[in-house]
């Protein structure tokens, strides 16, 4: 079958809009792919959502402080991966962060700076070490009351990976899966193109392109502080919290990570954001095919860009005070040519709630 037409579909799930663009022989075929993909996304949402009353994650959260809760192999493997990232990142990424997010009002509530006492008390329920996993029984048990699991955007990355796997199994050769602009996978590439074009914007300014990526059989995830934050007494508080201190991460505007799997990219972009370039580098180096781009700074102040393994040009735009590559891979600034802006073909990635 000649698969030469581009079709697009979208659905609302996992607290965001998921868009899929794919090449298929005809509209009926494309519809079947969309239906299959969106069914899978909704299935994962129903399973891993921490706010849906009937999800498997809610069942675990409701009971695991009282007894070990057995879950199915898929959910257990997913949680194991989350805990593995928590351990390897030294807690910079933590699947038990939920109570902190709520305390700061970043989850539905009104944003506020909590008191030291409240922060201390909440920190007493946060920490991946407070959960015991038993692979023999596929069970999860909270060792401290008040703990809850909130894998955040990791579920979104997992959903993207699952859709990629299903579409591949169905013989789809070219598709772009985009979950809320923050978790993206380029399966194959459009005919005659090196990949699916994804533009990494300057933080908070989607019209200014920082770097243009051709995504082919690769995923990309972006975390940004500019999507949700508040200012109080001259200080800016972003919604991405450091689970170890319980406080918003400072000095970081945006991180973008490319890696072969969207689940990994989601975890790594958060870790890169919370830990910064130097500390997260080890983890990135351990991930085959990973690359990263950091924009350090505070909103409205001078910025600094750092990259690791980032092979695409990074543009110098106004306000950038300093740019450095950890391994000096980038060409000199003068050699970088600004790419033509092609809104119909490109996709802008942006930070999303993690």
């Amino acid at each position, binding site marked *: 079958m000649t698969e030469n037409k581009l079709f697009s579909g979208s659905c609302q799930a996992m607290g965001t809009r998921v868009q899929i663009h794919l090449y298929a022989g005809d509209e009926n075929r494309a519809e079947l792919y969309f239906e299959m993909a969106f069914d899978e996304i909704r299935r994962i949402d129903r399973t891993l959502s921490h706010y849906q009353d009937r999800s498997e994650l809610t069942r675990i959260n409701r009971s695991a402080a009282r007894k070990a809760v057995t879950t199915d192999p898929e959910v257990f493997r997913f949680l194991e991966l989350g*805990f593995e990232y928590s351990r390897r990142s030294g807690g910079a990424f933590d699947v038990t962060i939920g109570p902190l997010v709520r305390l700061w009002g970043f989850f539905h509530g009104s944003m506020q700076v909590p008191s030291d006492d409240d922060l201390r008390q909440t920190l007493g329920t946060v920490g991946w070490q407070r959960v015991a996993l038993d692979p023999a029984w596929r069970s999860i048990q909270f060792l401290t009351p008040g703990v809850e699991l909130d894998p955040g955007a990791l579920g979104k990355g997992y959903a993207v990976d699952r859709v990629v796997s299903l579409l591949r199994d169905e013989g789809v050769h070219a598709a772009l899966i985009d979950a809320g602009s923050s978790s993206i996978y380029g399966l194959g590439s459009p005919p005659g193109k090196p990949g699916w074009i994804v533009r990494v914007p300057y933080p908070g300014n989607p019209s200014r392109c920082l770097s243009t990526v051709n995504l082919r059989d690769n995923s990309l995830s972006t975390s940004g502080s500019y999507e949700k934050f508040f200012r109080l007494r001259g200080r800016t508080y972003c919604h991405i919290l450091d689970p170890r201190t319980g406080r918003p991460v400072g000095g970081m505007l945006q991180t973008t990570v490319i890696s072969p799997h969207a689940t990994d990219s989601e975890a790594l972009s958060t870790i890169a954001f919370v830990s910064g370039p130097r500390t997260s580098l080890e983890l990135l180096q351990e991930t085959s095919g990973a690359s990263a781009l950091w924009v350090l700074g505070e909103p409205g102040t001078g910025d600094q860009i750092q990259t690791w393994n980032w092979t695409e040009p990074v543009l110098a735009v106004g306000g950038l005070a300093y740019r450095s590559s950890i391994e000096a891979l980038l060409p000199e600034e003068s050699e970088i040519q600004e790419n033509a802006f092609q809104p119909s073909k490109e996709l802008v990635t942006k930070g999303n709630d993690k």
Partner: protein
Amino acid sequence: MNRREFLGQAATAVVAVSTLTSCHKGGSEVAPSDRVKLGIIGVGSRGQDLMQVFLRVPGVEFTGLCDVYEPRFTQGRKITGENTPIYRSYRQLLDARDVDAVVVATPLSMHAEHVGASLDSGRHVYGEKSMALTVEGCDEIVSAVKRNGKHYQVGLQYQYAPEYREALRIIRSGKIGRVLQIHAYWHRNNSWRRAVPDPKDAQLEQLINWRLYRKYSGGLLAELGSHHLGYANEVFGSLPESVTGSGGIDYWKDGREVPDNIQVTYRYPGGQTLFFSAVTTNRLEGCQIRIFATGGSIVLTQDGGTLYYEPSTEQSAVPQESIIEHGIITAASYKAEEPYRGKGKKLEVPSDTSGNPEYLACNSFIDCLRQNRHPEADENVAWKAGVSVALGNQAIDGGNKIVFSDQQSRGTA
């Protein structure tokens, strides 16, 4: 990342995390003798969902996967483990020794054969809804349950939904008066068709999209409406006495043989009515059961339930004798009390009973096996819903009224 790769990644994670588990007694309350070994006939998408849910119950494992479509084995083993035995014939699965109970998730037309054979092999059965395609098939399964003295639970999981049970409790308490009408919907907006690797392969098309073909399927009424019918039968405490129906292939003219929209009206002996509608071209109504009683209404959805009292039936707060004796008091204004009008009152269930109906149903089935307890959604519940579906489909097909006289005279199976 596919599941296999994911499994590989997670294997590394196990080593790291399990070092934390030395003080953990996870799942140890399940003794080896309490392990329940399940075999499954039909490892399609519904079967895979069920496998996943059953594996959330401590001590459950799958010891046999049976299907006639080769790719299902790989898909199934991704859920149950790479070494799960596979069978290409259900007879082989039933001949295997380490199978305590069988899950049947095959096309509807095969339920009677597969459930019957599983029961005859001495296994308990969790059988997907609807019970069987025909009234005779439903009768055969009931006979097989009685003949073998084994447990049979039908996959009508909403029978286990806590809010649905709570609604039933309220109705039976008489709080909302007499239920006379139920309007139920399952409205979707999709083709109800699944992708087939080779669309030109007619046999494969029918195998994967069996729900669309008469030979195998009871269409929307069986696959969607059986939940609503099972519940209405319970609310009205009876099998219907007649049904009229309509439906057609009006939009998805893609070679399917079952209607893409149906409307059926069942009449019950107590002068009660169930109206059920399923469409595949609009999802405004979604999945819901609207129960209308003389003193109130209950709306049940997949996410819970809401109660509305009927203001017109509110009794005066002042006893009539008192009015004659003491009169009434005048005030600046009188605001009529209209409790729970507007947004209604959410049906509350104790937190220890809340949860996903599918998990509760599967967990209950395993508990029945361990405790040798009779399932709630047993062969009688299944038979009533199954017969209601089968005769409802006759009404849709003929466009005429079907009377349940023969079935009614038998009461229940």
